């Protein structure tokens, strides 16, 4: 049975259907990439899955539970971690405190949570920044911090929204390496990525979203060679190979 099932997810903002009838599964232990041009509705889909907002219609089944009506904190408690495309760090708190907030989900004593946070910080390569205020970080560090905070809650699945955007080649390789390590530690990953190349290199499966609808899903090879995908990317002014 799949860890996460998205069934006929539709989300309308007034007259605009940002997601329409999107259906796919995420197998436990896999890395699934979601790609699509800007404005295709990828972030909207993430917000629905992580329960930041309600679906207009459709269902989300996660780890055997129908979480369609859950609140965001309930989804999190049930094992869903997420990051934001525009990082939402807790600016007035230090890096370690940010991660500790995440760790408090499973360790209600602050001391224990902080120990866990230190581990996670180390794992994500943030240890040197532990004492720094989150407001003083650059975007790349903030994205890493969001991953760390989500990981500290020991999620079953991690939703990553454009973690690679704006990173240079070296930073991108580091990020890919981190995602692989997270996945190896047993966390299923669902990642949005605008940069096709990244998704292709790590994903077991890729879901292509165009204009709110699922265009297709398949292995990276199937997706990159599919004429409609190439068309959607090239037609949308984007380079599939970039």
């Amino acid at each position, binding site marked *: 049975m799949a860890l996460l099932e998205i069934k006929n997810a539709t989300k309308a903002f007034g007259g605009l259907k940002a997601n329409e009838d999107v259906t796919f599964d995420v197998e436990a232990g896999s890395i699934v990439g979601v790609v699509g041009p800007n404005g295709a509705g990828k972030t909207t889909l993430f917000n629905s899955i*992580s329960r*930041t907002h309600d679906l207009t219609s459709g269902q989300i089944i996660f780890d055997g539970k129908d979480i369609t009506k859950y*609140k*965001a*904190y309930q989804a*999190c*408690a049930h094992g869903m971690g*997420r990051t*934001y495309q525009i990082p*939402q*760090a*807790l*600016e*007035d*708190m230090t890096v370690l*405190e940010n991660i*500790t*907030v*995440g760790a*408090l*989900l499973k360790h*209600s*004593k*602050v001391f224990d*949570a902080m120990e866990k946070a230190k581990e996670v910080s180390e794992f994500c390569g943030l240890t040197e920044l532990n004492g720094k205020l989150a407001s003083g970080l650059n975007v790349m560090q903030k994205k890493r911090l969001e991953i760390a*905070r*989500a990981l500290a*809650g020991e999620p079953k699945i991690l939703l990553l929204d454009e973690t690679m955007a704006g990173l240079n080649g070296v930073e991108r390789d580091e990020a890919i390496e981190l995602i692989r390590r997270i996945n190896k530690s047993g966390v299923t990953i669902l990642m949005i990525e605008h940069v096709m190349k990244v998704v292709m290199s790590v994903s077991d499966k890729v879901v292509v979203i165009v204009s709110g609808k699922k265009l297709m899903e398949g292995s990276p090879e199937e997706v990159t060679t599919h004429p409609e995908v190439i068309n959607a990317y090239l037609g949308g002014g984007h380079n599939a190979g970039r």
Partner: protein
Amino acid sequence: MRLKSVLASEKGFVRQVVIVMVILALIPAISRGEFFVSTLCLSVIWAIMGIGWNVIGGYAGQVSNGHAMFFAVGAYVGAWGLKAFHMTPWITMWIGAALCMLLAFIVGWPLLRLRGHYFAISTMAIVECVRIICTNWDLIGGATGVSFFEKEMSPFYTLQFQNRVPFYYICLAFMLAFIIISRVIQQSKFGYYCRAIKANQDSAESAGVNSTSYKRWAYMISAAIVGIGGALYAQYIQYIDPVSLLPLSNSMLIVLIVVMGGIGTIWGPVLGAFIMTFINQYARALFNQLSGLNLFIYGVLCLIIVLFLPKGLISIFTNDKVKGVFKKNKESGKEAE
């Protein structure tokens, strides 16, 4: 054993408590003048109020402009308990605090859904409603208020003292208790979650924080502490009415005290309360022909704080930068010599 390890990890805080409490306990030795001691009592009562407000306004970041309502509930319960039932404030203050929690629970239900300025403004509106209700509710004294000076019973039963020095120490004991509670909150999961909500509510929710519930608890605890402050104030002043308890300026003074002293800090409310109360009392007493002088000084202080000490006056003691400035001044002073 646990207590020992907690004390060991809280060395810094324990040292601060000892220093501050010793200083405050010794102050009456400077002068036992009635006016001076009264001002001290008021300062401590306002400090308690500030510590209470800080839980919701400082830690959880929900700026309430309506805390005078809890102050009034605490005061009314204490006043009527003594006047009508000869009940000691030692008991009625807890009844008042419980009522404050209940009121906060009910009021907080709709209001805490609002964010930022909407919450701030709606709390202001609620306290106006409470003022109008109290003014027109004859059973609790209406606009005339309640006067309840009791000379028959022991002052330790009524908390009404002719000589206010013992009362000062009683208030100080309460302040100490709330300082410790404040610290416990700050260092607990509850405190971390409150700070997360303050920093970014949506982000906190995604990290597993049930913001509605945590905000509600913060509001209720905050209300209870302010209610106790109100009970102490009632026995101090021995006469209460809606005009003195529930004006907007009271709600704002609580906020101002914390913002001046240092919002979201342990000692900020205490520092703020002493400074504001002393300014208030002495400006009125010494320059009574200049009736707005205290407000003028508040204004200037506010400006200074906004411009130079955005984290409040307490940051003089904690901020490395500010400390650095003082050190540099000293050093450059030496060089100049």
